[in-house]
């Protein structure tokens, strides 16, 4: 059974600072998704990482995937208040479980002035 651990679960940052959210998972997966959720809203897709060594960047967010280490990271550069949200990673189960995602606990990010 695929298990996913994110850390930290709570992250309070000052504007302008950098930080990284880590996503560890327990079994082989060659695809991983990152989502953002604002309070009372649904999930917004941020990144789809499709292979080992994949790196994607959008604005102040950059995500990477190391399938050998079973680790993905979401790096935040020069945080701004608009980035305040909950961030989820979700490795893809693969194999006969096509499309099934297992979500991490979520990281609640708060960016302060």
């Amino acid at each position, binding site marked *: 059974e695929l298990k996913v651990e994110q850390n930290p679960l709570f992250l309070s940052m000052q504007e302008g600072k950098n930080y990284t959210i880590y996503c560890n998972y327990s079994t082989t997966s060659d695809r991983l*998704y990152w*989502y953002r959720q604002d309070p009372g*809203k*649904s*999930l917004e*897709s941020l990144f*789809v990482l499709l292979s080992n060594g994949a790196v994607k960047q959008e604005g102040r967010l950059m995500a990477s995937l190391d399938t050998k280490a079973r680790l993905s990271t979401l790096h935040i550069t020069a945080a701004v208040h608009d980035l305040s949200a909950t961030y*989820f990673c*979700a490795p893809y189960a693969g194999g006969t479980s*096509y*499309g*099934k*995602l*297992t*979500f*991490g*606990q*979520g990281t609640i990010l708060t960016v302060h002035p």
Partner: protein
Amino acid sequence: SAVISQKPSRDICQRGTSLTIQCQVDSQVTMMFWYRQQPGQSLTLIATANQGSEATYESGFVIDKFPISRPNLTFSTLTVSNLSPEDSSIYLCSGDRVGQTQYFGPGTRLLVL
């Protein structure tokens, strides 16, 4: 991006009753899924909605409690039966597009009194 709509967006139900949630996706989605997000928690996969056949349920979820239909490629329903306060959650449907991301609907917020 895929367009996914859900109805109703929210409901308040009495215990012992049932609620049926509808999900409509655009034609480019291949797989459809139903998730539950309990208050302040992450997402848990309930089942994969299979077109024209019985849904595939995850451990801890059973057809009698969560009957699912998917009569065609673009439409699915989830019924939450014999409601209890513990069923108060957000229920989300999602659609997976091959080679792309998994898109989520806006969610249905259920409160059981």
